[in-house]
């Protein structure tokens, strides 16, 4: 056992570090670091720079642009990206629909979509959750009825992240109403421009437009947009969710945020000095840092084991990463909120009330509160932490 990187891995880390910090525009990275929202253009710009180097989809099969990296290289790549506050390539494209099409799609679908997905020429969103199907995803009701060469889709999806930018949506739909829950679900690709689709924004509590409801009213979808076999969609969804959970711990993001908190604490006046002079605050920060270090090693253990196990099935240990990783992400936003102190109350930045005549000394404090509010989602999405615990209890402990 040796937890240190090999010389090759260290060289790769340095290469990734330099790339992310020199090639991705600083203003985009600053927005990520400060927890401000990114525009569609920011996302496209960043992903295309990565794709130009062949780094948008390194985990894909080689013939579709993958890199054949070791799990440790992939881990280093993701962590360096997060540490540099580079936005991850659009998850719905690169970690969800892309791998599903590559694994289960037909040749025509691969040729039509994969290169465009990697380059963010097509923006994809996810149509899984429904108002009545959240944690209990298999109870979804949106149905697709075959009529000649089309499916007619009716129903509603919700929590559709960044659906307002999307060109395409991949959906789980019920194609066999008679079958039991998980059976009878299919995975289909729908062009968002198809008549009958309505997108309604959901504004999240910090005031941003990040998620949507998507309504389907007699939407005609060509049968060629079915992925794999009819009624096998649940298997593909499980494959996809396993992908979603890889890297969900966001260790690099929490590390980057802690580094920023330290910087801000050194600047924030408190008592006769700054927040950083306060031993109790430093201890609270250290507690989070220590847990994060432990989780980092846990993540590396999971990564190292990935090379040796059947990668088509999710590793239940990834649920540990999800639970602890989300808790630590939230803990960092609580520290940030604490540094902002009384100034977190003010929301002058997002409301546009800030002008050059009225600089607010702590304009970052506004985004800190927003981050704290917004990050409550990380223990809810991607399978809530309660669901993750059920998975561990069942799959790991056999309870």
């Amino acid at each position, binding site marked *: 056992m040796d937890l240190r990187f090999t010389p090759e891995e260290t060289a790769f880390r340095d290469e990734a570090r330099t790339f992310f910090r020199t090639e991705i525009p600083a203003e985009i990275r600053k927005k990520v670091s400060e927890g401000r929202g990114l525009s569609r253009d920011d996302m496209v710009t960043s992903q295309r720079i990565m794709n130009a180097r062949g780094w948008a989809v390194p985990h894909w099969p080689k013939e579709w642009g993958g890199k054949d990296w070791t799990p440790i290289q992939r881990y280093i790549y993701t962590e360096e990206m997060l540490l540099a506050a580079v936005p991850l390539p659009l998850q719905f494209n690169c970690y969800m629909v892309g791998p599903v099409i590559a694994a289960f799609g037909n040749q025509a679908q691969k040729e039509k979509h994969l290169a465009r997905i990697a380059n963010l020429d097509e923006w994809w969103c996810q149509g899984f*959750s429904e108002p*009545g199907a*959240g*944690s*209990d995803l298999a*109870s979804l009701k949106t149905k697709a009825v075959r009529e000649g060469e089309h499916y007619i889709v009716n129903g509603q999806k*919700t*929590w559709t992240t960044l659906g307002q930018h999307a060109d395409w949506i991949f959906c789980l739909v019920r194609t066999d109403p008679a079958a039991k829950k998980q059976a009878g679900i299919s995975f289909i690709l729908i062009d968002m421009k198809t008549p009958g689709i309505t997108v309604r924004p*959901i*504004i*999240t*509590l910090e*005031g941003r437009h990040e*998620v949507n409801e998507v309504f389907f009213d007699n939407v005609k979808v060509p049968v060629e947009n079915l992925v794999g076999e009819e009624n096998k969609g649940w298997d593909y969804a499980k494959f996809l969710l396993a992908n979603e959970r890889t890297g969900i711990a966001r260790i690099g993001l929490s590390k980057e945020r802690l580094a920023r908190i330290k910087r801000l604490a050194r600047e*924030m*006046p*408190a*008592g*006769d000095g700054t927040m950083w002079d*306060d031993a*109790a*605050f430093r201890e609270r920060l250290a507690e989070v840092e220590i847990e994060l270090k432990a989780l980092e090693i846990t993540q590396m253990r999971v990564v190292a084991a990935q090379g040796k196990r059947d990668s088509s099935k999710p590793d239940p240990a990834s649920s540990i990463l999800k639970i602890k990783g989300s808790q630590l992400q939230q803990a960092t936003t609580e520290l940030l*909120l*604490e540094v902002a*102190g*009384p*100034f*977190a*109350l*003010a*929301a*002058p930045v997002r*409301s546009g*009330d*800030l002008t050059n005549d*009225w600089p*607010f*000394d*702590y304009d970052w404090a*506004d985004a800190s*509160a*927003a981050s*704290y*509010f917004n990050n*409550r*989602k990380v*223990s*809810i*999405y991607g399978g*809530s*932490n*309660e669901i993750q*615990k059920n998975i561990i209890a069942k799959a790991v402990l056999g309870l």
Partner: protein
Amino acid sequence: MDFDLSPEQSQLKDGVDRLIASSYGSLEARQKLAKEPLGFSKAGWARFAEMGLLGIPFSEEEGGFGGGPVETLLVMEALGRGLALEPYLATVVLGGGAVRLGGSAQMKERVIPGIVEGTARLALAFTEKQSRYDLFDVVATARKTAEGYVLEGAKSVVIHGDSAHHLVVSARTAGRRRDHDGISLFLVPADAEGVKIHGYPTQDGGRAAEVAFSGVIVPAEAMIGDEGGGLPILERVAEFAIAALASEAVGVMDALHALTVDYLKTRQQFGGPIAQFQVLQHRAVDMLIAVEQARSMAAYAAMMVDHTDAAERAAALSAVKVQVNRSCRLVGQEAVQLHGGIGMTMEYLGAHYFKRLTMIESLFGDTTHHLRRVSAAGGLAA
């Protein structure tokens, strides 16, 4: 020992609960009121005055109704439950509190009737960019002149500072930045020459302002209390503020807990209500325990806020804030988690409760600040 309300107190509670329910019957109604020019409804404020709520803590001689901490507790709890936007805390408890506790007879006569009638709104301008939660950390100055005093400096995050007619301002007449002596309080008209007020929304849908004072001349009679003796008054005001916020927090948490329990009973997943899962039942119980701990501390605050031993009183109110803050955090976070995605949305009332609870935590001192004060006092008196 008696935790029951007197008939008059019950009547007040029913009245204020009804008033709040009629103004804040739905989230849509509240969000509409928040968009009014002042950030709240002028008509709503007038109804507060009609009901006598704005005169509660002032004595009858001052033109008020001679209510005590329990009456304030009842009002604040109702305001919390309704997520009311009116500047009750800013005007009656903070600004009005400073005048009540330290103002001269003439000042009280001049200001308090206006507060009680709803025509005068006040705000307390005490936070500075370097002060965090330390009331004595004051850089703004008041220089004595032949005409009175000249104010220079800036105050940050002044709650309802943009709708107030008068600002109660802490400024140094002597001493250095963190000296306890040498701070004076002044009642400054918001429209005085040299006062610049820049309002903006707060995270919880309320209003606050950055306020700058540049060569602002006020007469000597504008001073609240003695020259250099402002801090003890400010500290008293903060104690009343903590007691009031504790009750507001209880109202918010009560309502949010009820919403959450209701959601557990109605949300269907896996073939039944999610309340069937014991793990969620226990979480709702933990929330309840946190609410009840806070409710007890709000009662303790009402009892201790007029306690004569200043050191014991200060430690007690800090203890209240610690417990209330902890309850706010647990109840707020758990409510969102148990709701899942819906708890994250602007269109859901629960999310607004969560935001208010988060902001209550940082008003008049966060958990660390007050834990340290209790610790420095050697804990609580037996």
